[in-house]
């Protein structure tokens, strides 16, 4: 085991993928000499050369569109989108092209593209640098959408994403890039938990708290705080947003009878809406309370000085827990 930051764990995972398969190529803006603005690809161009780790012209549509072409040619492109809010010029190539090609070609063309996206807020950044666009992609048939939350998962999941024959949107919680954790670099990918399976990161009996990305740590902290108050929270790190690992979620909700879903993205049409609806359908007879969502507001990501009022934090999650438990909370006496 090695102690690595989440960013370094991604770097090592990318290195393994480049070493394991000569058809893996990394493409992005500033990923070569600079090693990426977050240094996730640091040193990889020096090690693997300019034809494996490629600085591209500034065009997200160009990056993803050429990745589709490279896939036609049998490559496994890994595209870095510099910041979440920069992905939209590439939206057509992701949603209308990469996502649909396997279907349109009746399974004859595989699109093993991984699109890495540093996402989420909490770093005091400028506009377009703190967004959570995952729901657009989870809504799109043909795409897999995964989110890592810790170094060990980051290391394994990036390799699994690259090995997948489907296009994968790989979201990285940028405010956790410097968080450290134990990583088993020698572990075999074959034995690793599939990236589509959720993880119960803290067991509990009273409330199921489902989240992903940077909020997993916040949720774990909330579970500790709630325990002091006599409430036992089971925290589940979703890891995959499309598809969702419903068996793991159902098993938990059937036990606790209470569901809270938290994410930084807005509420309307979000991942939380889908999970709340699906678990209501699947576990209706077990629910003691309507599912509760704790999310960012349905507003454009606000300027840095206001982001603490947008992002769910420990207190907002605990308020959601109080709601699902029917205890006094911010909406007591309000029609839900």
């Amino acid at each position, binding site marked *: 085991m090695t102690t690595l930051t989440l960013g370094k764990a991604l770097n090592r995972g990318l290195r393994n993928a480049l070493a394991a398969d000569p058809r893996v190529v990394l493409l992005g803006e500033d990923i070569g000499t600079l090693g990426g603005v977050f240094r996730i690809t640091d040193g990889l161009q020096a090690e693997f050369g300019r034809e494996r780790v490629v600085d591209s012209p*500034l065009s997200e549509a*160009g990056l993803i569109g050429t990745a589709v072409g490279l896939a036609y040619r049998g490559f496994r492109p890994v595209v870095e989108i510099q910041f979440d809010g920069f992905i939209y010029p590439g939206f057509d190539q992701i949603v209308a092209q990469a996502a649909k090609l396997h279907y349109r070609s009746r399974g004859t063309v595989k699109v093993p593209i991984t699109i890495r996206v540093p996402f989420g807020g909490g770093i005091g950044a400028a506009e377009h640098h703190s967004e959570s666009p995952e729901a657009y992609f989870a809504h799109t048939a043909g795409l897999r959408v995964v989110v890592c939350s810790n170094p060990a998962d980051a290391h394994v999941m990036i390799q699994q994403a690259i090995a997948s024959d489907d296009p994968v949107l790989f979201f990285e919680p940028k405010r956790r890039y410097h968080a450290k954790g134990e990583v088993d670099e020698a572990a075999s990918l074959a034995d690793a938990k599939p990236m589509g399976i959720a993880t119960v990161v803290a067991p509990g009996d009273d409330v199921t708290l489902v989240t992903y990305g940077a909020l997993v740590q916040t949720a774990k902290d909330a579970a500790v705080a709630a325990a002091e108050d006599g409430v036992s929270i089971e925290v589940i790190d979703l890891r995959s947003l499309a598809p969702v690992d419903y068996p793991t979620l159902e098993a938990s909700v059937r036990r606790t009878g209470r569901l809270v879903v938290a994410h930084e993205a807005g509420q309307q049409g979000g991942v939380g809406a889908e999970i709340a609806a699906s678990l209501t359908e699947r576990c209706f007879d077990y629910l003691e309370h309507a599912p509760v969502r704790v999310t960012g507001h*349905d507003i454009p990501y606000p*300027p840095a000085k206001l982001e603490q009022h947008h992002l769910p934090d420990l207190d907002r999650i605990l308020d959601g827990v109080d709601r699902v438990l029917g205890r006094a909370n911010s909406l007591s006496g309000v029609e839900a």
Partner: protein
Amino acid sequence: MTLSDRDATGLLTRPESFVQLVDETGTRRHDAEFDPWVADVDAAALGRLYRDMVIVRRLDAEGVALQRQGELGLWPPLAGQEAAQIGSVRALRDDDFAFTSYRELAVAWARGVPAEGLVTTWRGTASSGWDPAAHRVAVPQIIIGAQALHATGYAMGVRWDHSDAAAIAYFGDGATSEGDVNEAFVFASSFEAPVVFFCQNNQWAISEPVGLQSKQELARRADGFAMPGIRVDGNDVLAVLAVTRMALERARRGDGPSLIEAVTYRMGPHTTADDPSRYRDEAELAAWRERDPIARLLALLEGLGVDVAGLERETAEAADAAAAELRAACLGLADPPALSVFEHVYAEPNSHVARQREHYARYLALFADEASDENGAGR
């Protein structure tokens, strides 16, 4: 001779060739085609251009300092690009409209944006710092190249309104690779929109050299879109003024768009979050220091017999005063109230946002109650 004629010769697009009226040593280079466009620019006017550039350089340095001191979240320095920005913005008429990226401090300042507005975005108190209609400058654009289409659409509207105003789109060398910029060229050309595409080729898109974006001079991109492309020494404020005036005049008379490539250099980092020592040589910086836009103008003024010592002194005082004003405005920007996070999402009342606002207000009230309980307990 039109820009287009000039461009057809290919004369201005050879690597070593650009429009230059004042060289690195401050010597006036006469140019039969472009001199008439700045015939009115006498020593006093040159002194004003000098003053503009010194002030924006000083404001820029203050912005960097404020970021280093933790008062601003980020700052994208313009150092090195003073002539490109001042020369072009001073060519605009008051009713022209500028669409900028995030680095055009000089454009916003020259269009009268108050000090507070120049730092708002970077202090993170609001997403933009001014009313575009009041200054005829759009809100700054961070998405690379998106504003080129906005400038084009604005210019199409100007044309359809039978006005002789124009729009100018500022973007960098990196942006020329984005679809939006190329699509803007197509629309502007197709509709003969009165827009000037002003590309500051500062040689670097964060760590990527301009050669990655284009294998030939960026100005030559214009050929394929049937518009004139002109390459100008972007560190020569007089030449930038001349070519921008010429391109604006072309737009006003209904002949459509032009592309100007102002060859300049980003002396600082991409932003204060960047470390250029990872990707470029000190020697390159030193070479560009020799081509400083302010030093050469001062040398020109000295040659014209201007009391440059006096000018330098007065200008430095004005620049320091502007910097002090910027600092005071920055420190005076209060954090916005929590519930303002819900403002301006829609132009019309919106039930969904209203409900979320109400819920969040109730949530915040819990803490207000707790705080007052704690205060009570402490007494």
